[in-house]
């Protein structure tokens, strides 16, 4: 089957119609979040780590690490592994992804 | 449909972890998937969600499945949900078995994953066995009366009756006492917080709107004597006691009567004669009645007034209704003698205080206006039964607020009075907190005691003294001198509530109040179809909540009877004529007279009247030939379930 003729995406159309520019603040937040997520995922490559360990290694505050980690957990990118003695979970990359 | 044609789908719910944390749902699915007749077995996080129901619907609609097992929570919660889902998809809703693997499995066996999983498998297997012999059934449709019986003419009964009448439903309102109004009327001038309107005003207004509506028939001095029938078609026999009055009388008739008794309308703080006059302006009916138990038929009143007719006889009225609302109310808790000083002069209950304030516009102790009053809260409430001493374990909800209301009212009448509140917690929930605040602002003093050290009331000279350890002040023992001690008593189910529970076979909760099916899903429904509950017959509550619950009960009754027909579950008895030899053993077993002998061709056989049969199955063991069976739960189905439970044998 041949490729269907590429239609203009409706998002592109709306962008054009509204003469849309991504607000600077929003763009910055997206960039920052992406960077944090990338750092966390990199930390977890091939390892299991607690929030504390990730925070230390990536230089990001624990609460921020945890927030993004939980977001990624809900989006099936990471999963909890075993619980350490001090009540902290270790996390790892979701298997099979 | 016979066994071979049954294609069973099994759907196992995680209940978002409630089940799956304990039961290995994957294993359940795997095991029961092997059962003969099962064509699909799946698990899903929330079977009750739209998506979960859609799973069932899709399988039924495609024809892949024609019988369904859902293993989830209690059938009381979601059996109807899934039957409806099957119907929507064009399937037969009775090709269904609901397995409870939550309340009766995961929650009861938390921590025993193996045991719980085994049990879940066992139950699903039994359900599958049941369905292999299931047959499509259909509801029994019966015309419904477009009328409702409301039992109780208090606040709830009045509200519900008025709602129904306004919605175009015919209403029969039955009140035990000679006048409408119930407990709310007896609250009299006590205001309904936060609206500042006296309770009696509300009662009067409701009565005014109700009386004279053509949809409404009111029986006072009347009792529901017997109820038979079923949802949509209840036959009700009402006994109406004579008033012994044909009309009104001029002058103060009560004065001619020589008999005296405590006046219940004022909670016993005043006296009345055997002639009961309309207790308040706007009361219904506005003609007197005679308390015949007190009356010795001396005839003095008859001489004074031609309207008196002592020859009246009780009458029995029969009505047919589609639904019944029980609004039989509460009675105040009566403290035992000695309980918190009960019995000492100057110690009264909150209700007696209310009665006195209404009757006399004030209160006097030993002929003097009290200078100080102590309200003792939770008398007869919130007492744990462990020691066997306590009265009621529950909180009566309205008493804190009623006590504050009464205290403010008392202060209005006696501005200088000093008021102490001796309570455990002040439960002035919601907007009522403003009432608590107002009492403080006006100088009322609040003291709190703990359950372990209840206050004691003693007599010291001509004064009362309340001794209490105040937990707010290092538990020092306070000595509060008082002229008046008010015991803030809670609610208990009224005698009428107890009687109606007995007569209609309604369930009561551990607290004695009528039991709803589910506080959130079916808050005014009882286990018996077509019978609803409203107001304080169900639980202690205040005026606003009583009115809301009455309107809610009316809503349920209205949606039932406005349709004009009801559909009954098809689970009734039937007779396999080929096995019946008309021995009549079943007939004597049936408490509803639903079985009779009919001619079927050349011979006589038993036959079941489906509208009368309640589906109890009491006839089943009586039949020597197993000819009489319950539709939807035959002997064969039960036997199969028993056999399949342990995997067809002793070896399991």
């Amino acid at each position, binding site marked *: 089957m041949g490729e269907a003729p590429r239609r203009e995406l409706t998002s592109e159309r709306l962008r054009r119609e509204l003469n849309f520019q991504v607000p600077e603040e929003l763009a910055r937040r997206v960039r920052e979040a992406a960077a944090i997520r990338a750092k966390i995922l990199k930390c977890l490559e091939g390892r299991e780590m607690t929030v504390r360990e990730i925070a230390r290694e990536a230089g990001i505050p624990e609460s921020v690490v945890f927030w993004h980690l939980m977001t990624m957990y809900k989006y099936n990118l990471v999963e909890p592994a075993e619980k350490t003695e001090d009540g902290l979970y270790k996390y790892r990359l979701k298997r099979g992804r | 449909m016979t066994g071979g044609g049954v294609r069973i789908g099994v759907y196992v719910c995680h209940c978002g972890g409630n089940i799956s944390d304990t039961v290995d749902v994957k294993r359940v699915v795997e095991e029961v998937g092997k059962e003969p007749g099962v064509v699909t077995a799946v698990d899903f996080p929330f079977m009750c969600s739209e998506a979960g129901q859609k799973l069932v619907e899709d399988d039924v609609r495609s024809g892949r499945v024609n019988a369904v097992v859902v293993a989830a929570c209690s059938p009381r919660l979601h059996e109807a949900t899934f039957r409806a889902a099957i119907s929507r998809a064009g399937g037969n809703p009775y090709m269904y078995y609901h397995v409870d693997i939550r309340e009766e499995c995961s929650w009861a066996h938390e921590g025993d994953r193996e045991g719980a999983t085994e049990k879940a498998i066992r139950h699903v297997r039994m359900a599958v066995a049941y369905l292999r012999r299931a047959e499509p059934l259909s509801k029994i449709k019966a015309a419904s009366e477009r009328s409702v019986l409301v039992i109780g003419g208090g606040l709830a009964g009045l509200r519900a009756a008025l709602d129904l009448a306004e919605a175009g439903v015919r209403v029969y309102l039955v009140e035990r006492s000679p006048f409408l109004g119930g407990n709310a009327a007896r609250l009299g001038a006590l205001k309904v917080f936060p609206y500042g309107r006296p309770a009696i005003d509300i009662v009067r207004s409701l009565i005014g709107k109700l009386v004279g509506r053509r949809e409404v028939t009111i029986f006072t001095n009347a009792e529901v004597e017997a109820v038979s029938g079923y949802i949509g078609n209840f036959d009700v026999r009402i006994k109406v006691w004579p008033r012994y009055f044909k009309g009104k009388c001029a002058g103060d008739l009560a004065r001619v009567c020589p008999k005296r008794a405590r006046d219940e309308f004022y909670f016993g703080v005043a006296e009345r004669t055997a002639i009961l006059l309309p207790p308040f302006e706007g009361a219904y009916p506005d003609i007197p009645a005679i308390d015949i138990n007190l009356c010795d038929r001396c005839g003095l009143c008859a001489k004074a007034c031609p309207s008196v007719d002592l020859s009246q006889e009780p009458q029995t009225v029969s009505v047919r209704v589609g639904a019944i609302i029980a609004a039989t109310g509460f009675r105040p808790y009566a403290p035992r003698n000695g309980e918190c000083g009960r019995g000492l002069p100057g110690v009264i209950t909150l209700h007696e205080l209310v009665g006195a304030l209404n009757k006399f516009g004030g209160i006097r102790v030993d002929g003097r206006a009290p200078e*100080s009053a102590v309200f003792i809260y939770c008398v007869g409430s919130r007492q744990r039964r462990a020691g066997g001493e306590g009265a009621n374990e529950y909180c009566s909800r309205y008493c804190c607020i009623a006590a504050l209301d009464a205290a403010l009212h008392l202060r209005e009448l006696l501005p200088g009075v000093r008021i102490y509140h001796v309570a455990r917690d002040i439960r002035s929930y919601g907007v009522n907190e403003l009432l608590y605040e107002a009492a403080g602002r006006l100088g*009322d*003093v609040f003291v709190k005691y703990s359950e372990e050290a209840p206050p004691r009331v003693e007599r010291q000279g001509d004064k009362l003294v309340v001794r209490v350890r*105040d937990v707010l002040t290092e538990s020092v023992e306070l*000595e509060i*001198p008082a002229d008046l001690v008010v015991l803030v008593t809670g609610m208990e189910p009224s005698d009428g509530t107890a009687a109606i529970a007995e007569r209609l076979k309604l369930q009561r909760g551990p607290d004695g109040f009528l039991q709803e099916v589910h506080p959130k899903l079916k808050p005014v429904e009882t286990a018996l179809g077509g019978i609803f509950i409203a107001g304080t017959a169900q639980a202690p509550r205040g005026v606003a909540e009583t009115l809301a619950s009455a309107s809610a009960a009316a809503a349920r009754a209205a949606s039932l009877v406005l349709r004009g027909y009801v559909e009954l579950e098809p689970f009734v008895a039937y007779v396999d004529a080929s096995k019946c030899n008309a021995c009549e053993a079943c007939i004597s077993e049936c408490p509803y007279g639903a079985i009779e002998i009919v001619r079927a061709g050349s011979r006589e056989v038993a036959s079941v009247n489906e509208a009368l049969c309640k589906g109890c199955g009491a006839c089943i063991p009586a039949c020597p030939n197993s000819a009489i069976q319950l539709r939807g739960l035959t002997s064969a189905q039960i036997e199969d379930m028993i056999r399949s439970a342990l995997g067809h044998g002793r070896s399991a």
Partner: protein
Amino acid sequence: MRVDHRLADELRELGARNISQCYSCGVCTAICPLSEEGREIPRRMVRYAVLGLRDRLERSLEPWLCYYCGECTKSCPRGADPGALMMAVRRYLITRYDFTGISRVLYRSPLAEALLAAALFLAVVLGVYFLHGPVNLERVDMESFLPAGVVDAADIAVAATLASLLLANAYRMYRLTRRGPRLPLTAYITELVKTVPPHFFTQLRMLKCRGSVRDWVMHALTAYGYGIVFVLVVLFLRAIHAGVYPAAHPLRLAGYVASALLLAGAGYAIYGRARRSSVARQYSHPTDWLFLILLLLTTLTGVALHVFKYLNMPLEAYVCYAVHLGLAAPLLILEVPFAKWSHIAYRPLAIYFARLNELRARRLQPSP
């Protein structure tokens, strides 16, 4: 313990406006910077007040530990104004410590207070009018108008009376609040030395109140201003009467400093109360106003006297002196033992007595 509904009414008169609104949540106690475990304020006092537990209230030293920062009132979820209650309790306690019954009159009747003040004023002014010496209109001659010896004698008489009254009241305070057995004499003395002087001279506890540095400074300035004046009057009156000194003379400097401090302190307090600038200054009792006004006027007349003296305006100076003394009399006689100013004694003593009670409690409980 028998409840007594009249106490709450009395305290209401003394300024505890909303206290029956209290529902005993304990926020005031937990928020109070001076509350500490074992010496919780103010909720316990609120309970005593509301229930009318007079004995308990009178036995309490805690009211003196409060410096009315107003945190409790600001945080009170019911608007019960516990700070005002503490103030009212202090007033109540002053009336209880005072055996003469005068402070009771002062606190309960603003009219009586005003009349007493006026009477003292008149008595002094008339006394000066009738008893003054030769009036030298050539130059300001204080010594001949009113010899320092006479004033000193009057001073000493008044001081002795006031001090004995205050001491008697302090002793009553001690009796009321004493809990536990007798202590060795040395303990009384060492604790007295350890607690009273430091607190008397610094009022450091007040600094524990959040955001109170300015209040503390103003309070201290007033107190020190008064202290300087006290020293000047008691020790150097003769010298002040006698001489005219250059501007840089220590006596003059001390006088200027004291006047400035008193004016600043009293002005600050009056301004604050008039503006209701803080919780503590929301509601003022008549005694508060009288005290501040007398203090301000006494200071102003003192300054005027000084001015007249150095401008050589004899008649004005003599009249001013009489008025000055007339104002000082009620300020001292009414306020020191019977009202507002008695706190200069009660506050440090309360800390001392509390410490003694602590030691007594410790003696009752053998240490582990």
